[in-house]
């Protein structure tokens, strides 16, 4: 009988599923599930450098004493850190499934992950349902905590509004003349939102500037010839782009070959991460941000975080032969935040491995120092971080053969992030009420 045989197959699968799956973490280890892009377009620019940085930090923490205080204790509060890495490629559907697998099958103690904002929107309800402590370390969309509130979910990096507000503020504070501006952004939520944020900020700071064409080439298009023609014809004073990775590199190579950077001021919301690859092919005089005081801007900042920054910077450069850009910085700030939270929770519970509830309680409203500055979980009732930002201008140092950021402006976290309780779009529309810029 076919049904019974197929039924047998089903039963066998059921049992196999029941038996499979490794055991839970030991009491003396803290197991984290890390989700980041290991394949696809975001692997090169975000996923892989982020995890390269993360892996390095975890190794240094597990050895103990490698990091400056207050991060000189071993692991997380003495617990050894164990990591399971999952590829983020494959879409939100797959990520929800993998998230459940990490929590329920691998029984991780915390999840740190997600570059894609689609994933960041899909995961939080599941995390809350499973009561699983989760850190969103990279993604940009403000919608995560504006459209919902979650008990067990925290984002340790500022949302993307900051990037474009900072760009506009930079143009203003350095007295650029901006009679008009145009944009080229990838045709998906990130690009669309970034352009909306930028035009929103410009409307406040440069109310007379004319908005010229807004181009949205397909994600991963590769060919920008037609778009560049359109931008060249428009002769806008500023051309804004939030492109990243291969799309940004391709655009820059093709645009500079045709002199777009000589006709218009290029302003790149998240452009720092292509510097190590492009080197001198990145033209001088491009304004760019790093989604936080990350990469070159962090190195150039100095101050009391210098030692922390240098420790990780040097280790990264020694290990991978390239300097760290924004992605490892965001991974570091997530892991250092997690370390701080775990240790705070352990101080409160008498030194045992904290539960998800204890972790969430400890993380809420937490503040800590990271190479990218002082991070405060100030928004969304203590679940959403704000952090300072920096914008600079590229300048090739021919003598040393490396790209430098000059005319860097550092923006206080409260200058470029909305205050608690206000949605990013409203904040832009109302002219940045409550912004504290010094």
């Amino acid at each position, binding site marked *: 009988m076919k049904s019974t045989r197929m039924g047998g197959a089903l039963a066998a699968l059921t049992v196999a599923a029941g038996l499979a799956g490794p055991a839970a973490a030991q009491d003396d280890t803290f197991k984290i599930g890390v989700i980041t892009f290991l*394949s696809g377009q975001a692997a090169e620019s975000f996923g892989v450098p982020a995890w390269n940085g993360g892996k390095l930090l975890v190794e240094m923490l597990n050895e103990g004493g490698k990091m400056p205080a207050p991060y000189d204790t071993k692991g997380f509060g003495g617990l050894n850190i164990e990591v399971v890495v999952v590829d983020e490629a494959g879409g939100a559907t797959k990520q929800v499934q993998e998230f459940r697998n990490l929590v329920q099958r691998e029984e991780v103690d915390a999840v740190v992950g997600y570059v894609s904002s689609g994933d960041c929107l899909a995961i939080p309800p599941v995390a809350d349902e499973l009561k699983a402590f989760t850190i969103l370390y990279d993604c940009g969309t403000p919608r995560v905590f504006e459209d919902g509130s979650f008990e067990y979910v925290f984002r340790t990096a500022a949302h993307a509004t900051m990037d474009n507000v900072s760009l506009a503020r930079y143009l203003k504070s350095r007295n650029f003349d901006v009679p008009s501006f145009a944009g080229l952004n990838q045709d998906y939520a990130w690009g669309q939102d970034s352009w909306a944020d930028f035009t929103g900020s410009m409307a406040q700071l440069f109310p007379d500037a004319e908005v010229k064409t807004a181009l949205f080439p397909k994600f991963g298009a590769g060919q920008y010839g037609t778009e560049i023609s359109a931008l060249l014809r428009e002769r806008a004073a500023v051309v804004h782009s939030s492109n990243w990775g291969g799309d940004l590199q*391709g655009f820059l*190579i093709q645009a500079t070959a045709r*002199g777009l950077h000589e006709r218009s001021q290029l302003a790149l919301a998240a452009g720092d991460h292509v510097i190590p690859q492009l080197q001198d092919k990145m033209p001088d005089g491009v304004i760019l941000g790093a989604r936080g005081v990350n990469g070159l801007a962090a190195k150039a900042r100095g101050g009391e975080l210098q030692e922390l920054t240098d420790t990780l910077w040097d280790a990264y450069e020694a290990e991978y032969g390239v300097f760290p850009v924004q992605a490892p910085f965001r991974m570091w700030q997530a892991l250092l935040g997690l370390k701080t939270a775990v240790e705070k929770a352990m101080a409160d519970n008498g030194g045992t491995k904290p539960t998800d509830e204890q972790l969430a309680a400890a993380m809420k409203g937490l503040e800590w120092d990271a190479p990218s500055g002082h991070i405060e979980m100030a928004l969304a009732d203590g679940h959403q971080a704000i952090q300072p930002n920096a914008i600079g201008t590229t300048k090739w140092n021919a003598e040393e053969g490396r790209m430098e950021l000059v005319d860097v402006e550092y923006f206080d976290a409260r200058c470029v992030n909305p205050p608690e309780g206000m949605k990013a779009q409203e904040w832009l529309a109302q002219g940045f009420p409550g912004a504290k810029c010094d």
Partner: protein
Amino acid sequence: MDLVATILVDGLIYAGWLFIVSVGLTLVFGVLNILNIAHGSLYAIGAYASASLVGLYFAAGGDAVPWGSYAALILAAVLVALVLGPLLERGLLRFFYGRDEVLNVLVTYAVFLILEDVMKLIWGVNPYFVYEPYTLLGDVEIGPLFYVGYDFAVIGAAIVVGLAVWLTLNRTKIGKIVLAVIHDSEMSETMGVNVPRIYLGAFMAGAFLAALGGALTAPMISVTPGLGVNVIIVAFAVVIIGGLGSVPGAAIGAVMVGISRAASVHLVPEAELFIIYFVMAIVLLFRPEGLFAKTQARKI
């Protein structure tokens, strides 16, 4: 006027690129009756191989004769075809001839998945750059705009490729044999044509064209993982518009898509994403099997 000229120039540049990346797909479908999703991977591998080879060329002192980098680009495509063509066709695809077309799409999809990771294993995730060939040809000023000379070289390459394929098929003995195989492979076999060899040759030619597309594109982009996914969708659209298996169809399809897309970017930028599907829908509405489809006889 100046806008019309810009749209035409932009459209043709894009069309040239589209044609190169899609003509191999249509050729392989015409002969082997396989719609090859791995065409996108071959494109990406061509890009990687040319990036590596051009890199080697300059590392070996090619600066003295930078023009040699063009030879390196083409050589890379040839290498890809020589290595992967026989490997995929003899090693895998030939076992699926005569099977359901859709099943064969899945087979090539599996190959696509495998090659995606193989590329990562060989080249890693860091981007490769080979801009030298892109800037060698200088600038061209058209009206108020600058174009890169290389863009026009791509149009030239597309024309050369198109003519070469067309002339080979229609003016040489081997081409006539290929056309006979396209028409009826069983009949050709009984008439003494070495059909397996024709299949292998056609697949290698298709692989070469895919890799050439990648190799010619590599200088203007950063070569990164995930390159092939987007190419395959546009190449499909062009080939479907032109009619599966038709070389002139691919050319017309490429020009239609290229010009419509350029017009859209300049006039209605919001519609860019749709324009390719829009053209496809219109064509299929009036010519369901594409503009130049080979007619399929019904049995009775």
